[in-house]
């Protein structure tokens, strides 16, 4: 079967994949309904005040992370000798034991947290979706094998496994990201596998197959868009959890290393000054709390907005 050709800009003809012509709700030719679906989701999302607040916090934080050099006035490594631990006009959140500005370090810390959160969720998504797709789509022995592997991975207490792995590989930002991703992909695999098992017997998949689609195209173009919603929700909450885990690991001394301004590390260093300068500990602590809350609220809001039946 030859695919129909339509003239594209510039006079050349482009091949249109045959399955685009099939009328399934996600296909590219039904652009208008999709737009209105997005509007509808956004309308529902907007109604949830906490979710909007979460989104706002995340946006602000992303800006703060990107613009960190602009909104802080001191180098995060520079040391003020005349400084006192207590907050002052020059040092809004005070300085740490080495005389470094805590406000600056909290702002820069958002870079670390967001990097870890976003990069590890990407890694977990890629691994989880790949494993889930293979297990769910091809089934059989491969499915059994992959699901046993997820069982084994899930059998490790999360923090302990992370501590051991990082001790082995060595402490660095990338180690933390890889370890959190490598320990977090299982729920994505299970979610996606479950959806594939449900969807792959549906008629429009059969139609796509009849139109000559390969496995890859069926999985990415026909199944994924219809299975993505719970995955998006879980991924949002995963980012919050990853921020929390990164802080815990840094706090335990197996995360990122000095002089990187990571919130968990700042708390670990501030613990000695709980009596004299609790702010050293509580400013970064509050930053972690607010960030995680934002992602949790946004995840909850997304769940309600994407699937109103779940309420």
């Amino acid at each position, binding site marked *: 079967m030859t695919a129909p050709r339509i003239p594209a800009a510039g006079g050349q003809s482009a091949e249109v994949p045959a399955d685009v012509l099939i009328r399934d709700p996600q296909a590219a030719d039904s652009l208008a309904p999709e737009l209105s679906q997005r509007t509808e989701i956004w309308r529902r999302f907007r109604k949830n005040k906490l979710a909007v607040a979460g989104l706002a916090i995340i946006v602000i934080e992303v800006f703060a992370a990107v613009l960190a050099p602009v909104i802080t006035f001191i180098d995060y490594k520079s040391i003020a000798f005349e400084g006192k631990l207590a907050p002052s006009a020059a040092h809004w959140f005070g300085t740490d034991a080495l005389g470094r500005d805590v406000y600056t370090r909290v702002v820069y810390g958002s870079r670390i947290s967001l990097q870890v959160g976003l990069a590890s969720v990407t890694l977990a998504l890629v691994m989880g979706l790949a494993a889930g797709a293979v297990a769910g789509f091809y089934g059989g022995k491969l499915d059994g094998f992959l699901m046993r592997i997820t069982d084994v991975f899930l059998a*490790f207490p999360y923090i302990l496994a992370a501590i*051991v*792995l990082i001790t082995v590989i060595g402490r660095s930002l990338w180690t933390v990201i890889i370890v959190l991703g490598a320990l977090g992909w299982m729920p994505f695999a299970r979610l996606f596998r479950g959806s594939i098992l449900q969807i792959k017997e549906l008629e429009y998949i059969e139609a796509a197959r009849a139109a000559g689609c390969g496995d890859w195209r069926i999985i990415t173009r026909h199944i994924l868009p219809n299975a993505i919603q719970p995955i998006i929700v879980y991924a949002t909450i995963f980012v919050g959890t990853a921020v929390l885990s990164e802080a815990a690991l840094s706090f335990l*001394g197996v995360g990122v290393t000095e002089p990187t301004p990571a919130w968990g590390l700042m*708390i670990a260093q501030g613990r000695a000054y709980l009596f004299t300068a609790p702010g050293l500990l509580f400013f970064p602590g509050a930053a972690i709390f607010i960030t995680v809350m934002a992602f949790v609220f946004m995840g909850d809001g997304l769940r309600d907005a994407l699937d109103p039946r779940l309420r």
Partner: protein
Amino acid sequence: MAGYTLRRVLLIVPVVWGAMTLLFLAFMVRGNPIETLIGERASSATVRAQITQKYGLDQPVLVRYGRYLKNVSHGDLGRSYKQGRSVNDILKQTAPNSLRLAVWAILIEILIGLTAGIISAVRQYSFLDTFVTVSTTMLVAVPVFVLGYLFQYALGVYAFQHNFPAWLRFPTSGIGPNKWYFGFIPSAGEWKYLLLPAVTLASVSTAVVARMTRTTMLEVLRADYMRTAVAKGLTPRRVILKHGLKNAMIPVVTLIGLDLASLIGSAVLTESVFNWPGMGGTVARAAQSLDAPVVLGLTLVLVVAYVVINLLVDLSYAFFDPRIRYGGDAT
């Protein structure tokens, strides 16, 4: 059911073996234990040779792996590089402390979590309900260690600085006299050392239990048999506790069981914050000082505990909910 149980028990073997192998490989890759043993002091070649021989580091990897498997299966977890004593000793010393803390955390979790959840469901949309919902959401987002320091600061530092009454002042660190009745009931001087770490450890799980109880309770309250119970003229207390709670408990019980396992993770943090001499804090410290045998040994014990608890929880589903049958032998 028997077939399912057997399969699940057998699955423990590859998991534990996998854990052992991974842990062993992990610390093999990680280079030079001699450096770890000697530390930063200068050392002569003779000393190095002696240490190498003492710990059997000159043997090929496979031989060491075989010996490690053999020792562990005989219950010998090896010797600490740093502390000069056997990991079994360390385990014997720390495990009871961890267990006591965990038991109390679970009791707190059940007591507060269930109460909050029930009240919140029975008085839906009341002030108390809103309070429970908001505070449990927030509790999940507070890092365990930050919460621990908040408690320490409020009741251990601020309370002393501002002369709070004696019963409101708490020590911030350590296990105190470490005296217990019947193994886990704290003595008069002990409970103050126990309370803050136990509450901290229980915090996240308490929030989860409260929310879960609320959800299932709300579902159950709408059931027909609840209306029947009210119509029969039973007192509200009896309706809620006897007819409602019993049926709302099924998912909550399994949740509490699973939390038992996740407590292990939070325990690492809580024990570090409060310097509680348990297994979690010891693992964290050993990981920092690259004391491989301690990390290996204690982690292995924790993994086994975790796997066994998960198994028991899964099997208990069928016990609490007769509708669930495993292994396809039900009709």
